[in-house]
């Protein structure tokens, strides 16, 4: 019984190794036209590759954020 399990695990590891090594090989896909990157949208990038902050945009954000007016739901402040 234990021997059977070992054989099954062995086959499993073997198959996993084959899958792993074939995944590393890229299937050669030749393209004939260059890409059209005119519609590139940086919002689709992961966070660690997003464009850095533009100073103008920060100032605009700060302008939007101020002036701050708070309404006091709880009535008058003391």
């Amino acid at each position, binding site marked *: 019984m234990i021997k059977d399990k070992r054989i099954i695990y062995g086959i499993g590891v073997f198959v996993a190794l084959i899958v792993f090594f074939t995944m590393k090989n890229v299937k050669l896909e030749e*393209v004939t036209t260059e890409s059209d990157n005119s519609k590139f949208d940086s919002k689709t990038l992961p966070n660690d*590759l997003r464009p850095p902050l*533009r100073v103008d945009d920060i100032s605009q954000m700060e302008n939007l954020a101020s002036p701050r007016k708070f309404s006091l739901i709880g009535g008058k402040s003391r």
Partner: protein
Amino acid sequence: MIYKVPTRFEELTLIIKVITDSPQSIRIKVMDEEQPNTCFTDRYKRVDGESIFFVRMPVSGKNSLVYVYNEAVGNVTSEEDTSFEVVSITKEQLEKKLDVIDFANPLVRSFVNFATRFCYNSGSLNSGDYTSDDQKFLIRYLPIIEDGGQEQTTPARIDIDSGVIEVSKKQFLDFSVPNRMAILLHEFSHVYLNDNVDDEVEADLNGLLIYLGLGYPRIEAFEVFAKTFMNAPTEQNKQRFDQIKNFIDNFENQNTFLHQ
């Protein structure tokens, strides 16, 4: 010929195996499929028989386009050019040496993040001022760098007092992502790592240590310094290039001298 490779924004090494029947000059160019003006490498090699190109990519886009062509023929399809064959393209793990980088220094951490994002996106960024998330660093992305109305040959420079880095968009558009990174790390080193802020060689080596540790390709560092020095071919720059070459060779052989 152009091959599309899914790189999924991963850090990786592309291994491109090429075979020829006779000596041929084979060019390899790796471009981002979506991000405009974004090249990861552009190099050629004389190939006679089988040869392997290693392209280290600490950053990559969703998909990359790998251009492989015989320089004598130009970029045509594999049916039109039978002078060489692309045997395989393989993705391998990127080899890095992060232990040589002082990531305990928050300035280094912040600048590496900022510079990586700036360099990857330079091809599509508008001119303007860009800052790191912690707003400790500022890059002024200018159409060209000029002094008194005269265009300067340098691709970037740093103000020693304020730490503001000026970058020439005109030159950065022609640079690969690793080229851009090597230049920015050099400028950063002047003010934030050097013992002597004016020492060019010290800035070269401090910047290169981070660059190489992150796993960027050696050839792109040689290339960008060569391009920059060609615009100012002085005896001092010739000596700098020799020191850079020695440093890179020693880094490969793990004989790197660490600057404290």
